[in-house]
């Protein structure tokens, strides 16, 4: 698993900055992660930590300006996507890497039918006859578990429920058999029972198609249920990475520890919840040194000035907290 052979997507030291009048927001500040064939990688973090920006950058969807890719590489099968022009990028998008967005309400165009939109997703990359187009879109909608797919083709997005719309979005993402699907909080806007349906659907699709999934979320419950490997992001950097059991049972960064401890559940009733003090920093006003130090209960003086390096715990489990690392010997 650790030989880099089947790494499909590899983001290396990516830096994405945004120029907002007079200020520079370092939304993504040196992030590296990789997605291997057939695995589910979760990018976990709170709002403004740069998880969505880093994913959008891999698809070349960052508006420039105000955005600026200040450094790093996005390698897809060894090819740096950041070097590609718009036309070449268009061929990658959808065809090799596809994306599912958070808001199923706004990601579909309200004036076109479901059929139109699914068929368009196919036609962008492939030339196929009309009958085949129809067959394939029905098949796609059936694959994502939409009931009565033949009839759904003529429906408009407003006639579908939120969960059904998200299924259509997934069908469109799968239209050209991509190798990697990036899902940006696809279930956040959905009810729990519908979220469970969609998560199960992702699981099925992945098994059937050997799909690689880069799943962006802030919900640790969801992460625990689907992730093979996890990257925890905070203020534009990755603070901890590792396999799901390692992150959940043996977190080695105070932020990860704090997050897990602050989750409410029934068992903790009566006891005070652990809470991380302070607020998530604005990407334009990040504290120096370790960005987590103002909220960290382990912070020592060096944390304020020295940017923490990755400490290796073996098996790909790494954390950016030298204080904890030294403490454990």
């Amino acid at each position: 698993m650790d030989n880099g052979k089947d790494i499909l997507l590899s983001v290396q030291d990516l830096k994405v900055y945004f120029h907002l009048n007079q200020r520079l927001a370092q939304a993504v500040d040196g992030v590296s992660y990789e997605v291997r064939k057939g695995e589910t990688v979760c990018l976990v973090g709170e709002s403004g930590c740069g998880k969505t920006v880093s994913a959008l950058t891999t698809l070349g969807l960052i508006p420039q300006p105000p955005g600026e890719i200040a450094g790093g590489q996005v390698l897809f099968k060894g090819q740096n996507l950041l070097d590609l022009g718009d036309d070449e990028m268009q061929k990658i998008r959808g065809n090799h890497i596809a994306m599912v967005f958070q808001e199923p309400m706004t990601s579909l165009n309200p004036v076109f039918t479901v059929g139109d939109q699914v068929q368009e997703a196919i036609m962008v990359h492939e030339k196929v006859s009309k009958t085949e187009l129809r067959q394939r879109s029905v098949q796609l909608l059936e694959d994502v578990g939409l009931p009565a797919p033949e009839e759904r083709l003529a429906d408009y997005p407003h006639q579908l429920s939120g969960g059904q719309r998200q299924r259509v979005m997934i069908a469109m993402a799968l239209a050209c058999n991509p190798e990697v699907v990036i899902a940006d909080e696809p279930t956040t806007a959905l009810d729990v029972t519908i979220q469970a349906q969609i998560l199960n659907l992702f699981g099925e699709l992945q098994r059937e198609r050997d799909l690689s999934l880069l799943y962006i979320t802030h919900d640790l419950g969801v992460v625990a249920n689907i992730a093979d490997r996890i990257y925890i992001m905070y203020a534009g950097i990755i603070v901890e990475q590792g396999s799901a059991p390692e992150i959940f049972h043996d977190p080695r960064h105070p932020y990860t520890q704090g997050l897990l401890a602050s989750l409410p559940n029934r068992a903790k009733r009566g006891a005070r919840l652990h809470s991380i003090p302070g607020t998530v920093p604005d990407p334009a006003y990040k504290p120096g040194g370790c960005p987590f130090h103002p909220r960290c209960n382990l912070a020592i003086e060096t944390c304020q000035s020295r940017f923490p390096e990755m400490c290796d715990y073996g098996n790909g489990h790494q954390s950016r907290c030298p204080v904890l690392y030294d403490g454990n010997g």
Partner: protein
Amino acid sequence: MATRADARCCMMATGEGYNLDMEQMEQAGNIVLKVEGLKKHFPVRRGFFQRVMGSIQAVDGVDFDIEAGKTLGLVGESGCGKSTVSRLILKLLEPDEGKVIFQGQDISGLSQNQMKPLRKEMQIIFQDPYGSLNPRMTIGESIEEGLRTLGVKGQAERKARVEKLLEMVGISASAAYRYPHEFSGGQRQRIGIARALSVDPSLIVCDEPVSALDVSIQAQIINLLKDLQTQLGLSYLFIAHDLHVVGYVSDTVAVMYLGHIMEYAPADELYDKPLHPYTLALLSAVPVPEPDKRCELKALSGDVPSPLDPLPGCRFQGRCPLVEERCREDEIKFYQAGENHRVRCWKVIAG
């Protein structure tokens, strides 16, 4: 009323712990709010002449009660009517039928004027910390609105009270002169809580107070709400869709589906022995943050149906795994399944 608030504020400021006063001791265990057969249907009008084409049965016969100093969790998926319940209790909407009995007084028939002294007894905290504060008013002005209706005269007096309230929710007093956009979501939520506390209420309706917040901030707000509850003897109606949060904060939980309460039980009992198939489905659909317990989430099939003109019989019939002929015909009553445990399913009662 004002004196009680004063006493609380002062004690908070001086850092003394304090106990429930005698009056509240007597009330403990008493029922602050009792809701009986609450109904609200919104007519749906269509066409040029605005004819009534049907009605959205947002709330259709809801009963529950909240004890003093306790929390009732109200859970349900979107469109189940839980927000409408909160608006009905606060009398921001008029119920079509049913009673809202607050501290022994039926408020559903009261006029705006009669309602005025009771208004400040019940307050609300909102989900969206960005929409809940007037962007054109400073934090201090927003909180002062409550003090004004309370009849606190004198600017200096009000200012001092605002600062105390801000400190109570963990915001520095200098914040009073700033505008909402200068604060993060969690801080705005604290300010919203301060505004609710400004009139010294005994019941606070928390309408999804943490679901729009970041994970690390959620715990702060939940702790704050819990602390305030013990300090001030508040009762909460805690509306949420996150079962983990509800399980943590609530003493009693009501599960709502399409305008009906499906199950109503003490929190422990509901989580350990859920009786209604919907509660069961809801609980098994929630992903648990334990990678070892990973299994296929038991997903209910189908979508949450529209509350527009629901079918007769059980509201859950379309998605229920146990559905039978009788569920489609009979009006399903709220059965007693144990002490304080009620469930709207005849099959459960029949065994």
